[in-house]
């Protein structure tokens, strides 16, 4: 091999490392560990070239994930090299390994300042391109003046890098921009300026623009000029992006921009510029003006036409993708424009490229209306059903209820469909289908029976979990699991439950669908085979079969499936729902049994025994909730089983009426999750205040007395005598509408005459209600000593009716939520369904609540994305230089801060020095894995390095300082 390598010593040695890596295939890690040990020795030598070589190798290994933060002090040493190339290696090491919290940063300040002031341009560039990677406020402050002076350097290369460097410093130290902006602005306004510098300035302004658009409005004429005259497409793209953030603030700009943008759209051959023009028009809100400008409509149709062209005519997938991206932005404001392109968008749903599909899917979800929903959803479901999944699964996802099932398979055999779909795409589709259908409380759904069918199909389409497991193994991140397939399964189950609760009209169908999912015999056909992915569905579905047991086609089969012993291993969350459903279904079975066959007695006894057996298996479940529920029902059902054995002809009372009464009562309606929070606390409710300060002593006295008197009825009294001081839980349905004028807090204080009447009314009303304990004798009024104390000490004026009760008016809401149910008349509507909306009261403000949560999270930086640069500090910054005095002040502050910083630098320097001395002594730095040896190998490397290129080495080192 006739090799002409970079004739530097360190280059050669890196070559050895790389070659070694290639020859040690398999045992790479050992080889790397050995190299790291060598590097640790080499990097401590006095020879700068050797040091740089070692560092270069470390940087190379860092790329593969080998930590080099321990070498930060040596990085600094190499950075301070007098020769350019080693210096460059040092700076590269700093870029790759320094973090804002790296301690040696303190020591770097002077070096950076010196290099910025260097006479050679490459030398000067190094700190400029390196600083953005680890700037801290104090570092930025100390180098700021040096950087600022570079803005007027004679070489454009330096100027453009300085502008960008300044921007990055400003992100951590906003003051930098306050001082730097006038100069950057000068560069921007200067017509004679090098185009690269203008371009870099525009790029920076584009980054700043969306944070503080107001500050850049005055510059709009200049931007306009640059856009029209520059002829630089890269810059034009950025200017258009900038204008997109400015136009919403200044409507007059729209008028001015419309013509040049249209011009570009019509004439440019550069697709990226064309696309950004369209994008700028969309994002800048140029399409949404109210003044009915005729040009505006033309532009709108021009844009959409061009986007359509990008999708249809170009075979280029990139154009397709970005066109869909743009349409996705239009769809929120102009759904009708996008809906016209529905045909091409729908084709993209079957595109071979998953990225394009996902975009089309988002778009489809954004624009579906009630008349297109079914076709879109059917298309997606077919796509999932017909595509082979990543693991070969028997075609069990066949829907037996669909007669033309087999007919459809052959004519959909296009290559796009036969592609294997990754499971995260499948999950995405499932989520989207659910989003689309449940959108706005099912307002788009016409045919609910169809939807129930779709939901059952979706269960079978759950992707296999294999890839999920793989992901979990490598990333044991709890948050990642929330996206898994089981989560979608739970969502499907919840949809079935929602339908059953909200849409009375299809409750029968929904319950039957839930029943078919519960039945153990159907598991193999309706669920994805060989996985427990469908388990998430089972919980909500079990609740449905329990709650609406009277709609079940075969309660006893359903019950047998519920108590199948294989369910014992289900997750606790699912099991507790199962446990609740079992007695409900059992009640239904026994109710049916009474009218049924003569053998009901033995059948029910048998079922009871099996249920008891199932519950018994769960009585020691590790999850406390499951355990408690299991034991409760176990005891009751054991009693029932005993009663069955000893009873006569009829169903035992316990089974016929006691257990059913546990589950009958008011019907459950959907209640908004925010409703609870909105219940206003009554003003007079004081939870922190003691009833009576000397209650303990009083109680003690009374206790003694009552024990002496040993009243046998004391306990009975405690339970049965109405406690007049406790809060009454009136069911809100029964609250009579208040006719007295309401005060602002919706609380109502009836007059005293009313009180007695109401009290009587209430007693009447609750006499037969099993949830209320009837007074044994209303007139006796005998209270326990405990109550007497409370009564006497608090005065008799307290009574239940004076406790304010918020009027929820739930009954009215439930009967007809305005605008929730699909009302529009459609010719082929199968059945008109009422959809019950969430019950709540007051204004709907859930979004507001979310928003506050969101901002709170953002301000604390909790949900910051990885890789994100935080530019929020610039939000408070003002460019207008009206506060000279303040900057003067801050300069003073800067002075004192500088002194402090210098002191800290000195401290750290001492500490580092001591630390490095210590390392020299015992030879085992932080890692501990290091063994002091391997000198020999290094020597070999140096020798071979010397052999192959001694001449060039000399040449290289001679040329490098001049660079």
């Amino acid at each position, binding site marked *: *091999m006739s*090799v*002409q*390598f970079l*004739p530097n010593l360190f280059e050669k040695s890196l070559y050895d490392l*790389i070659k070694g890596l290639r020859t040690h295939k398999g045992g790479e890690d050992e080889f790397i560990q050995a190299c790291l040990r060598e590097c640790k020795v080499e990097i401590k030598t006095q020879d700068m070239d050797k040091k740089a070589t070692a560092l270069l190798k470390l940087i190379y290994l*860092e*790329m*593969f*994930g080998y930590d080099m*933060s321990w070498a930060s002090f040596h990085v600094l040493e190499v950075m301070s090299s007098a020769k350019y190339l080693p210096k*460059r290696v040092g700076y590269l090491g700093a*870029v790759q390994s320094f973090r804002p919290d790296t301690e040696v940063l303190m020591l770097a300040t002077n070096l950076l300042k010196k290099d910025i002031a260097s006479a050679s341009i*490459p030398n000067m*560039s190094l700190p400029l*391109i390196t600083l953005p*990677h680890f700037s801290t406020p104090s570092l930025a402050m100390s180098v700021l003046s040096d950087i600022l002076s570079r803005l007027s350097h004679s070489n454009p290369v330096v100027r*453009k*890098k300085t502008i*960008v*460097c300044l*921007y990055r410093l400003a992100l951590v130290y906003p003051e930098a921009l306050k001082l730097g902006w006038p100069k950057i602005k000068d560069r921007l306004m200067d017509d004679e300026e090098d185009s*690269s510098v203008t*371009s*870099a300035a525009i*790029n920076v302004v*584009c*980054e700043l623009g969306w944070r503080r658009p107001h500050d850049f409005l005055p510059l709009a004429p200049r931007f306009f000029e640059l856009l029209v005259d520059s002829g630089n497409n890269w810059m034009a793209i*950025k200017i258009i992006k900038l204008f997109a*953030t400015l136009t919403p603030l200044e409507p007059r700009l729209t008028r001015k921009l419309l013509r040049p943008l249209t011009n570009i759209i019509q004439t440019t051959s550069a697709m*990226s510029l064309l696309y950004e023009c369209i994008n700028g028009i969309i994002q800048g809100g140029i399409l949404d003006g109210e003044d009915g400008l005729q040009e505006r409509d033309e532009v709108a149709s021009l844009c959409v036409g061009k986007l359509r062209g990008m999708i249809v005519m170009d*075979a*280029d*997938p*990139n154009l397709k*993708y*970005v066109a869909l991206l743009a349409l*996705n932005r239009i769809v*929120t404001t102009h759904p009708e424009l996008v809906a016209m392109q529905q045909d091409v968008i729908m084709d993209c749903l079957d595109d*071979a*490229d*998953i990225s*394009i599909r*996902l975009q089309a899917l988002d778009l489809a979800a954004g624009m579906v209306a009630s008349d297109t929903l079914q076709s879109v959803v059917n298309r997606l479901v077919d796509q999932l059903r017909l595509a082979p999944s990543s693991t070969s699964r028997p075609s069990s996802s066949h829907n037996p209820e669909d007669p033309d099932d087999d007919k459809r398979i052959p004519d959909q055999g296009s290559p796009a469909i036969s592609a294997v779909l990754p499971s995260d795409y499948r999950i995405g589709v499932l989520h989207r289908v659910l989003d689309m259908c449940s959108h706005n409380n099912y307002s788009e759904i016409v045919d609910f029976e169809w939807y129930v069918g779709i939901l059952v199909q979706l269960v079978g389409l759950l992707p296999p979990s294999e890839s999920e497991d793989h992901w979990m193994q*490598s990333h044991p991140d709890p948050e*990642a699991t929330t*996206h898994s397939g089981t989560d979608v399964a739970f969502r499907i189950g919840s949809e079935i439950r929602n339908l059953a609760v909200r849409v009375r009209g299809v409750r029968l169908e929904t319950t039957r669908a839930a029943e078919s999912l519960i039945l153990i015999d159907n598991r193999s056909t309706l669920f994805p085979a060989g996985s427990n992915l469908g388990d998430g569905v089972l919980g909500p579905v079990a609740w449905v079969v329990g709650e609406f047991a009277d709609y079940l086609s075969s309660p006893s089969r359903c019950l047998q499936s519920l108590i199948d012993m294989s369910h014992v291993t289900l997750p606790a969350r699912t099991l507790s729902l199962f446990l609740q459903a079992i007695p409900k279904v059992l009640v239904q079975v026994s109710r049916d049994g009474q009218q049924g066959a003569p053998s009901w007695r033995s059948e029910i006894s048998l079922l009871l025994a099996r249920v008891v057996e199932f519950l018994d298996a769960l009585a020691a479940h590790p999850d406390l909730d499951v355990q408690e529920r299991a034991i409760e029902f176990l005891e009751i059902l054991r009693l029932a089983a005993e009663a069955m054995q000893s009873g006569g002809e009829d169903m035992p009372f316990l089974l016929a009426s006691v257990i059913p009464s546990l589950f009958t009562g008011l019907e459950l309606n959907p209640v908004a999750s925010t409703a609870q929070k909105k219940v206003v606390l009554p003003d007079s409710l004081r939870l922190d205040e003691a009833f009576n300060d000397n209650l303990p002593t009083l109680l003690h006295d009374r206790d003694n007395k009552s024990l002496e008197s040993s009243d046998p009825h004391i306990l009975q009294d405690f339970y049965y005598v109405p406690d007049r001081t406790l809060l009454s839980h009136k069911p809100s349905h029964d609250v009579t509408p208040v006719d007295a004028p309401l005060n602002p807090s919706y609380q109502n204080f009836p007059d005293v005459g009313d009180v007695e009447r109401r009290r009587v009314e209430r007693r009447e009303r609750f006499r037969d209600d099993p949830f209320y304990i009837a007074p044994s004798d209303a007139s006796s009024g005998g209270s326990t000593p405990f109550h007497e104390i409370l009564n006497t000490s608090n005065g008799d004026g307290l009574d239940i009716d004076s406790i304010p009760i918020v009027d929820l008016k739930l009954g009215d809401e439930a009967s007809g939520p305005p605008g929730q149910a699909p009302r529009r008349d459609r010719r082929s509507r199968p059945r008109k369904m009422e959809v019950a909306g969430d019950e709540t009261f007051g204004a709907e403000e859930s979004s507001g609540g979310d928003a506050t949560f969101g901002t709170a999270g953002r301000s604390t930086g909790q*949900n*910051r*994305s*990885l*890789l*994100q*640069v*935080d*530019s929020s500090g610039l939000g408070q910054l003002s460019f207008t230089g009206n506060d000279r005095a303040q900057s003067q002040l801050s300069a003073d502050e800067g002075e004192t801060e500088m002194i402090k910083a210098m002191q800290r630098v000195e401290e750290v320097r001492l500490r580092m020095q001591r630390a490095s001395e210590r390392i020299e002594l015992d030879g085992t730095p932080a890692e501990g894995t290091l063994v002091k040896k391997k000198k020999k190998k290094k020597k070999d490397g140096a020798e071979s390095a010397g052999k192959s290129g001694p001449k060039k080495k000399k040449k290289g080192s001679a*040329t*490098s300082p*001049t*660079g």
Partner: protein
Amino acid sequence: MINAVLVFNNTGQPRLTKFYTQLDTQTQQSLIAQIYRLVAQRPASACNFLPLPPLLSRGASSSAAHGPSDAPTQITYRTYATLSFIMISTSTESPLALIDLIQVFVEALDRMFENVCELDLIFGYETMHAVLGEMIVGGVVVETNIEKIVAGVRSQEGSLGKRKAVQAASTSLGRGALPGLGGWR
């Protein structure tokens, strides 16, 4: 802005990693692995945009829809022969322009190494960093002109001249290998 530039080969070996926001080495590696997995799944005919990998999608959820933000939302990649070039950026960058930027990067490397191949970049990775440093500073593009980029790197490396790791460049990186890229600039 551009948040990161990555280069790795078709077995997932990193050839260049440059993060314009600091990230600990561990997270860097898992991010590279996730992106590699996404790239590896894609057929050659697919578009040059990747969905966000799990590590990035967490914070960036819906921010893309509502104008610019600090969170990275776009991943653009291009594959040349054995190497994939990836750019992670926020929405202030134009996706199509980023594809062109990758092209500029590769063409500039090609100038530096003369008919560049993967091996050149392995041994000359310091030069590769220098080329990138002439194009992007702190995540902001400073130069798109190939002449100026090459001149900038040459001025750093002095008269070292052309450098070639292997003469037989059997796996040379083709230019304009993907259709429809010509006329975007």
